[in-house]
C-alpha cells in the first residue's frame, strides 16, 4: 500500500526524484482534488515542491518578470507590478477558486494541469510568456503556446519540472481578463477572454486576444487581433473583435454550458475584455478583477 514521498528543500533533489519517477505536487488543488473527485488515482510516488524556496517568488528583471513555478495565485494577484503592468494576470489570478485555492494553488500547477478553462493561461499567452522547464539533464524554454498540447496535456516530459515563467515587458499596454461566471467565486470560467492592447493616440497599434474554455487549449485568435489593429477600439471595433473570436472558437457542450451558448457568450466576453483593455490603456481605472467591474458593460 502507498508509495514513496519526498519533500526536498533543494531543486536539485526534486529533479533527481522526478528523474526517478516521482510525480510533482505543489498545492494539490488540481492533483489531490481530482483524486477526491475520482477523476484519477494519486500517482504512486510523489515529490512535494512546496518547501523549495527557489521555486517561489516574483522577481522583476531588467526586461520584465520572472515568476517561480510555485508562486501562488494570491501572490500574483497582490503583486504591485503585476497589478499595474500585467493587469490581466491579476484579473485572472484573483478569481481562481476561493481564498484557500489561491493561497496554495500555484502558477506552475495551473499550467501543468493544462485546463482549457485555466484563468491565468490567456493573459500569459498574450504577454508572450516563456516557460522554463528543467530536468537533471538541463533546462529548456518553451513558448507557452507550445506548452499546451490538448486538454490536460502539455509538452513537458515526465522527467521535467516547470521551474519558472518569464514575461517581457510590453510598454504602455492596457490589458484585461474577463470570464463569464455563474457566481463570483469558487467558479470555473464558462468562457473567458483576454485582451492586451497598445495605443498610439486613439488608435490601436497592437492587439492580442486569447479565448478561454472555447477551444481544446487556451489560444490566441489572430483574426480578431488583426481586426482590432488600426481601429479606435470603441464599441463597434470591440464588438467586431468579439464576433470574429466567436466564429473562430471551437467550444464543446458540457455540464456548465452548451456549445451554442458558449459561442454566443464568446462574443460578449471578448468585447468586454477589449473594452477593459482599451480603457486601461487610456489610463482609466477598471478595478481588479475586471470580470466583476465590466459585468454588464456594453
Amino acid at each position, binding site marked *: *500500500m*502507498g*508509495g*514513496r*514521498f519526498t*519533500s526536498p528543500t533543494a531543486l536539485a533533489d526534486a529533479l533527481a526524484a522526478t528523474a526517478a519517477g516521482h510525480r510533482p*505536487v505543489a498545492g*494539490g*488543488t488540481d492533483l*489531490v*482534488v481530482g*483524486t*477526491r*473527485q475520482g477523476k484519477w488515482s*494519486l500517482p504512486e*510516488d*510523489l515529490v*512535494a515542491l*512546496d518547501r523549495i524556496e527557489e521555486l517561489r517568488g516574483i522577481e522583476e528583471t531588467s526586461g520584465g518578470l520572472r515568476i517561480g513555478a510555485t508562486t501562488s495565485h494570491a501572490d500574483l494577484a497582490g503583486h504591485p507590478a503585476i497589478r499595474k503592468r500585467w493587469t490581466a494576470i491579476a484579473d485572472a489570478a484573483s478569481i481562481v*477558486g*476561493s*481564498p*484557500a*485555492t489561491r*493561497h*496554495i494553488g500555484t502558477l506552475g500547477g495551473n499550467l501543468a494541469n493544462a485546463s482549457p478553462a485555466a484563468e491565468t493561461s490567456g493573459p500569459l499567452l498574450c504577454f508572450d510568456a516563456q516557460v522554463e522547464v528543467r530536468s537533471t539533464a538541463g533546462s529548456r524554454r518553451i513558448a507557452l503556446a507550445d506548452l499546451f498540447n490538448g486538454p490536460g496535456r502539455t509538452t513537458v516530459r515526465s522527467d521535467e519540472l516547470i521551474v519558472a515563467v518569464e514575461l517581457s515587458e510590453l510598454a504602455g499596454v492596457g490589458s484585461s481578463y474577463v470570464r463569464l461566471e455563474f457566481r*463570483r*467565486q*469558487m467558479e470555473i470560467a464558462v468562457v473567458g477572454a483576454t485582451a492586451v492592447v497598445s495605443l498610439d493616440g486613439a488608435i490601436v497599434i497592437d492587439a492580442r486576444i486569447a479565448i478561454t474554455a472555447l477551444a481544446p487549449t487556451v489560444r490566441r485568435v489572430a483574426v480578431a487581433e488583426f481586426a482590432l489593429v488600426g481601429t479606435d477600439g470603441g464599441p463597434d471595433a470591440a464588438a467586431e473583435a468579439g464576433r470574429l473570436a466567436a466564429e473562430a472558437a471551437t467550444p464543446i457542450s458540457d455540464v456548465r454550458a452548451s456549445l451554442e451558448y458558449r459561442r454566443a457568450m464568446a462574443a460578449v466576453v471578448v468585447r468586454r475584455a477589449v473594452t477593459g483593455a482599451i480603457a486601461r490603456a487610456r489610463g482609466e481605472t477598471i478595478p481588479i478583477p475586471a470580470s466583476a467591474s465590466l459585468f454588464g458593460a456594453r
Partner: protein
Amino acid sequence: MRYLVTLQVNRTSYPVELEVGRTLLSVLRGELGLTGSKEGCDDSECGACMVLIDGRPVNSCSYLALQAAGRQITTVEGLASGTKLHPLQQAFLEHGAVQCGFCTPGMLISATALLAANPDPTEDEIRAGLSGNLCRCTGYVGIVAAVRSAAAELANAD
C-alpha cells in the same frame, strides 16, 4: 510506505505514521480525534474542512497530510482560549450565524484568516473571504453580521 512525521496542531505536537495518500482531514479526525473540522463534499467545494496552515486557509480534505508536517496547523478547536470563546465564536452565537452547525468550524477558520489579513473588511470583502465556505441553512446574513461584529470587537480590544 509509511512515514513518521510530526503534525503541529493548535500548538500541540502529534507524532503520526502516514501513507502518502492520507488527507490532512482524515488524520485530524481519525488519528488525532479533532472532529471539529468536517467532511462535507470531500473535494474542496464546501469548506467544512477548512483549517489554517501557517495562518492561511486550506481545504484539509484535499491536502496531503505529509505536506503539512512541520507546519503550524490551526483547527476550530484552537480558536478558544480555555473556556473563553474567540470573539468570532461569540459573535456567531449572538448573531444567529449558526443553525445546523456543520459549516460553522470552516466558516470560523476562514473568517479568522480574513480578519488576520484584513481587520476591517467591507461586506463584499467578507463575502469574498467566505466564498469557499457553503452554508445551506442561514442564508449567510447572520454570518456576515457576525464577522463584522467580531471585527469591531477585535479592533476595540487592540
